[in-house]
């Protein structure tokens, strides 16, 4: 079954036409999020030039990091068609565990981080078991956890005192930058690694006579990635300090990059990831194929809460402290919004780790841009709520469209 490769001349139009067909058929992919990013950038820059400064760009990344990380975990639960409403306060509980062990008990930073992560994983194990084994709808389980964890944070923090986090390593995560040369090295390794993986894959497929991605598309992908990564690192390496030199890629960026690579690998290259999609697409089919649906569900809740714990650590680092509001108020809404805006379906079976980054950027831009324009928390929440609603409508409508045209 070797497919005739098309002559190079017609390649580009064919790729474009296939993409347009896909989009019109309801498979929007990253399009809404990318469009949103462009529109928001233009609008906010027009009204408030500071928005478009390197300083604000770096600010935006650290601001959005918590949402991105929690959203990346939520995607696993959303892929199953489930929801975790407690992820925000799970991150709060884990941040509280971090602060207490670190500041009050004097543990070394790595021990505290591990304690916070284990707390997250255990929470996920409990939630997942309740959903998968007992069969309580995830909405109810995690709503209960949402309320209970709010109380747990209060109890852990002794009725709302604020515990400061002063450990230099933890504080550095969200507040310090890589030296410029390391930023460039990271960018080079990322692009080279991506190109190498794509090339190796294409070569392997070509050797076996399987249809391959057209070289032009490959080149465009690698080139596009190099452009984006190069631009980001360049801007972040500009001096954005007022009195002292302040430059470099914030440390959260490589943290997110590593998490993104790990989860993308898990979802796309392992049998476990494949089974998550299968359970989300058709749980009965997965069961008949011999997949342990319960185990997949529990694992996804564990991953979600584990990622929430990392989000909590980043939040604690950014605020230099943990208080009863850490992970509270709008964190969960923003994280779910990030995942859905990025293109993850609320109906299950569709989503990528990349969605969290794209959607998280949109959410962070709204919060940051509206803040710069002088709007208060009220307006910000209303707008974010509306954007989430818009993203969910796009999801529902494109699903309908996809069902009608046979795409998905």
């Amino acid at each position, binding site marked *: *079954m070797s*497919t005739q490769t098309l002559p190079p001349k017609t390649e580009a139009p064919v790729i474009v036409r296939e993409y347009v067909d896909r989009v019109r058929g309801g498979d929007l992919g990253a399009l809404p999020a990318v469009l949103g990013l462009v529109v928001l950038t233009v609008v906010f820059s027009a009204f408030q030039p500071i928005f478009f400064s390197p300083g604000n760009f770096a600010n935006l990344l650290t601001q959005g990091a918590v949402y991105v990380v929690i959203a990346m975990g939520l995607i696993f639960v959303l892929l199953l068609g489930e929801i975790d409403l407690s992820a925000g306060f799970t991150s709060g509980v884990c941040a509280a565990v971090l602060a207490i062990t670190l500041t009050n008990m004097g543990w070394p930073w790595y021990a505290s981080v591990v304690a916070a992560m284990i707390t997250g994983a255990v929470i996920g194990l409990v939630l997942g078991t309740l959903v998968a084994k007992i069969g309580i709808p995830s909405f109810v389980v995690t709503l209960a956890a949402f309320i209970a964890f709010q109380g747990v944070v209060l109890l852990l923090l002794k009725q709302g005192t604020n515990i400061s986090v002063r450990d230099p390593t933890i504080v550095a995560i969200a507040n310090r930058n890589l030296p410029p040369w390391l930023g460039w090295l990271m960018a080079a390794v990322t692009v080279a690694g991506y190109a190498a993986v794509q090339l190796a894959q294409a070569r*392997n*497929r070509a050797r*076996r006579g*399987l*249809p391959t991605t057209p070289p032009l598309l490959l080149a465009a992908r690698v080139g596009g990635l190099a452009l984006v990564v190069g631009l980001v690192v360049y801007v972040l390496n500009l001096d954005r300090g007022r009195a002292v030199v302040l430059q470099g890629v914030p440390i959260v960026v490589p943290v997110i990059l590593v998490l993104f690579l790990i989860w993308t690998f898990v979802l796309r*290259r*392992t*049998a476990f990831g*494949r*089974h998550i*999609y*299968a359970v*989300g*697409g*058709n749980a*009965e*089919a*997965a069961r*008949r*194929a*011999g*997949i342990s649906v319960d185990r997949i569900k529990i694992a996804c809740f564990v991953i979600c809460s584990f990622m929430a714990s990392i989000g909590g650590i980043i939040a604690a680092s950014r605020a230099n402290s943990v208080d009863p509001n850490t992970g509270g108020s709008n964190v969960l809404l923003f994280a779910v919004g990030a995942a859905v805006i990025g293109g993850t379906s609320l109906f299950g*079976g*569709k989503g990528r780790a990349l969605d969290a980054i794209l959607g998280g950027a949109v959410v962070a831009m709204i919060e940051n841009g509206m803040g710069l324009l002088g709007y208060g928390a009220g307006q910000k929440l209303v707008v974010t709520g509306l954007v989430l609603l818009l993203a969910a409508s796009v999801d529902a409508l494109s699903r309908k469209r*996809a*069902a009608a045209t*046979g*795409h*998905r």
Partner: protein
Amino acid sequence: MSSQAPVLELRGIDKSFGPVQVLHNVAFSAYAGEVTALVGDNGAGKSTLVKCIGGIHPYDSGEYYFEGNRVQVNSPRDAAALGVEIVYQDLALCDNLDIVQNMFLGRERKSGLVLDEATMEEMAAKTLAGLSVRTVKSLRQHVSSLSGGQRQTVAIAKAVLWNSKVVILDEPTAALGVAQTAQVLELVRQLADKGLAVVLISHNMNDVFAVSDRIAALYLGRMAAQVKASEVTHSQVVELITSGRSGELGLKNGAAT
């Protein structure tokens, strides 16, 4: 009946769900290289019998022989290990996965930790080519974009991918149009010609007579008759289905114990 021994043979299968006995002393055989049609009215016990064969429902008593050896089949895994694959009416495909991913679902090829996509795609392509399937555009298209006949094809290809010896098809043409039905029936015939034992469950007499070598008729949980398709007429089979007997054939009064 035939010179060759059946691949799959059931003797005296009883199955009850609580107080309701669904299968009474059922005997059933499937032969390599032949299509055996399993017919019967609604509630005759076809699906239950198939689920007993596939290990989804354990049978209460009776004997299960595979290639002449007595075996125990207590789970779908046991059945799959023997080489018995069932293609269910509702297909059990994941819409959000592509053809290759569906065909290997739950039995992915891996090299180390990583999925071996290239090998899986190669094997899937070979299997589909072996079944002379040329209607799919790309093996990497999502199942949601396939027509009913193409989905049925993928489901059948999934079943034969594993060097299975017995393939059971539950109403494969029920939801299909005329052209697609013909396509699927041709595929069913091909499976048998490749040496597999095929069991075809169907309501449609035309389909049954078009491809079957043998016909087994269930009537109210009893095996009314298992005959060669060439030795019976259309109306005889209908009689077997509706009343359990037809002249010399079928259940005798009181013989159903």
